[in-house]
């Protein structure tokens, strides 16, 4: 599928309705059946796709609203990870999970997401997975000698899934690693784990690195300088980074290290309900264009929209698209 210049996309999640949060909690308290919850999930996923289309997003996701959070959705599926399903009452909390033996190789079942999103949109689609480093930080390790060993095996396990996704027709894949920014010292082995995950995967892979978005607030602070030069060893096509909230200072790192990646430029601050004007979005893109060539720039929010109210999320995405169109005109495109 041919994408326009400066393609727009989302990081993954779309606005979580409060009623769905309630339903998820009710499911955990056995007041709602799995079947009813799944029907709700399907309905909001369709609505999320439709909202993204209406906002003008070029590469859409299913909104990921069936995922409780970026950890549990995977720990529940990873063969060999034991999850205490009674360990949370609030859906957004994390389950207690532990690995006590070597991870088995098996499907995580994400192919269903590819099929679902393909059924309901003709736009390009993206599927995201949580990265090995992030999962290592949330799953208690009682088997592997080191975090690195655990992460590398998780990379192997995710590799199986990413290949499955590509085989099912996914052309855009994303790996989310928000914990890098809290543990910069892990980066050398974390990048090895990413490379294990993407080895032989026939799709465009974006590595999304932010400063966290739990509860709509950052988990860490600092500068992306810690990523360089180690990140240059990552065998991914694109890096998607957070700039709208933090300012564009770190864009210079792309120039300084001659980074070969496509840049997923965060132009929407997802930690405020204030909607950016399209002209501000355009300004941010133009500043990035001073450093990154236009053919290597993708436009996206800083992170997922899960903590934004639905109207705010929609208006932010629409503003992002409008701001992008303003810049496209600079290149003779609409």
């Amino acid at each position, binding site marked *: 599928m041919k994408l326009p210049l400066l393609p727009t996309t989302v990081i993954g999640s779309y606005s979580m309705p409060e009623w769905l949060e309630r339903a998820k909690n009710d499911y955990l308290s056995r007041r709602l059946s799995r079947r009813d919850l799944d029907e709700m999930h399907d309905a909001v996923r369709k609505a999320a796709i439709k909202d993204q289309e209406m906002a003008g997003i070029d590469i859409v996701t299913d909104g990921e609203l069936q995922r409780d959070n970026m950890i549990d959705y995977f720990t529940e599926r990873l063969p060999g990870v034991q999850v205490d399903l009674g360990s949370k009452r609030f859906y957004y909390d*994390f389950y207690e999970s532990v690995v006590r033996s070597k991870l088995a190789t098996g499907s995580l079942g994400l192919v269903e997401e590819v099929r679902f999103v393909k059924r309901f949109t003709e736009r390009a689609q993206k599927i995201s997975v949580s990265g090995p480093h992030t999962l290592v930080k*949330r799953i208690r390790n009682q088997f592997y000698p080191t975090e690195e060993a655990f992460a590398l095996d998780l990379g192997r396990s995710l590799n199986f899934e990413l290949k499955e996704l590509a085989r099912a027709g996914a052309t855009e894949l994303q790996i989310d690693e928000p914990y890098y920014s809290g543990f910069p010292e892990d980066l050398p082995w974390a990048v090895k784990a990413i490379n294990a995950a993407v080895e032989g995967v026939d799709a465009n892979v974006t590595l999304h690195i932010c400063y*966290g978005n*739990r*509860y709509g*607030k*950052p988990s860490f*602070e*600092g500068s992306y300088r810690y990523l360089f030069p180690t990140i240059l060893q990552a065998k991914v096509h694109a890096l998607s980074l957070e700039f709208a909230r933090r300012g564009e200072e770190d864009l210079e790192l792309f120039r300084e290290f001659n980074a070969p990646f496509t840049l997923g430029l965060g132009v929407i601050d997802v930690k405020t309900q204030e909607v950016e004007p399209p002209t501000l979005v355009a300004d941010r893109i133009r500043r990035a264009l001073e450093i990154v060539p236009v053919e290597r720039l993708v436009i996206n929010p800083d992170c997922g929209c899960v903590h934004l109210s639905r109207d705010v999320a929609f208006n932010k995405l629409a503003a992002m698209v409008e701001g992008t169109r303003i810049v496209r005109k600079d290149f003779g495109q609409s």
Partner: protein
Amino acid sequence: MIVHINHISQTKKKTGKPSQLGELASLVTGSLVNFVEDGVLDASLAPSLRIHLDWIQYRTNFRDPVCVRRTTDPQGRPMALAEIAIDLRQADPAQLVLQLGRALQSVGPTSATDDGRVYLDDFRPYRDCMIWDFNRLFWQHLGEWEAASGRGFEAALPSGKSDANHPEAVADSITEFWELLKKLEDRGQLPGEIPALEIGVGSGARAAAWMDGFKALDEQKGTGYYAKLQFILGDYSATTLERAVTALARHAGHVSAAPLNALNPFKALSAYRFKVMYVHATNVYDNLPFDDLVRRDGRLYLVEVRAYLSSVAVDRLSADFGLPRNDFPTVVKRLLEEGPGGIFPGERGVAFWRCLWDYFRLEERLRALDDREESHVPPGLSWSHLEDLLTEAPEDVRFHISRGAAESFANTLPLLHPRGYLQVQDIFVEHMDEYRKGFKGPGKLDGSLVAWVNGALLRAVGARAGYDVHFAPFPYRPGTKTTVMYTTQRP
């Protein structure tokens, strides 16, 4: 009829003899039976009558020793449930039976009390009632009140002084903060600027002690954090801020004053979003608007109050200040708009204000909440979250919705740096069942007021915003009711 004994704590040594409190309680229950037998109380009303035996911690408060609470439906039409609340601390044994009899005669839904009281306002939820105008008046005219009373406002606290300035507490706070900065530095994550914020600065004594101590510790350790420190003094009173800035003059260059509304610190300080490393407040939350909710027989009621002066109070104020009886509602309105000088010049105006506040009372009624009503739900939470809180609560309970504290808290958290934390010293109700074990306010403190803060509610607000909220006893002064609330990031 249900009798609630709401005061459950040991207040005397074991002597084997009944206490005055016990004797008063016996008098109430014995009299109630007599009243039913004598037909003073309509037997048809008795099943829906609740009697509450309280012991009000605050010697000055907003209640008469015996008061009646009627109930209405959401539209204000009378309902059967009624309550009589008796403050065993204030009650005069010689008057109690008489007062109880009068109260019982007035509990019917259509009965009206006409004891000559002068109403100053209509029924309103606590959050909107006149006490907040008096509270504002006090902080605006604090100097005049203190001059008239001959003591500073901190002396009006039950302990006679503020726990905010306790030297050991301040020293521990400094050490804890320094250790946090050291950890960040060790990980290469120390920000270039280190903002700290105090909300409600009082005289500036605590901030000054904290800055002195921090500077000394930083110099001793040779860490250079003081040079990066920016201490923000936040208060809504310009006078208070000026006083505090003066107290911190020796730290000029590291101190800034921010006029802010305690309900929304973020509005004034949005430039510090996710940057503030340390937020502190003492006795701020207990002085912010709240609502009271009551659950009886599975139904939720909002407490509404109407300000009044008793007939005796009006007579005395009329005699002492030469004001006509019928003018009081207008005079009080003028006092709140123009200050004491708008009523009488100089000390006489303050004297009138002080006497009026002393006599000032609130009549309560319980209005049943419509299922769809949400006005009592505090910022930061939704109706469904309040429902969760209610599942933690006893079936039969009266409790605060500390909406001002919740709003302030919710609007402070976005200022916090990911490794920053908030510490609040105040009086908290940590668990909902504690509301059945004693009176939690409001009480009067000089010209202002105080109400315990619903910590369980703040815990719910914090959880929604990604913070776990913890409570620890204030360990520096034995017997204190102060608790330290602090936040940690939820994983």
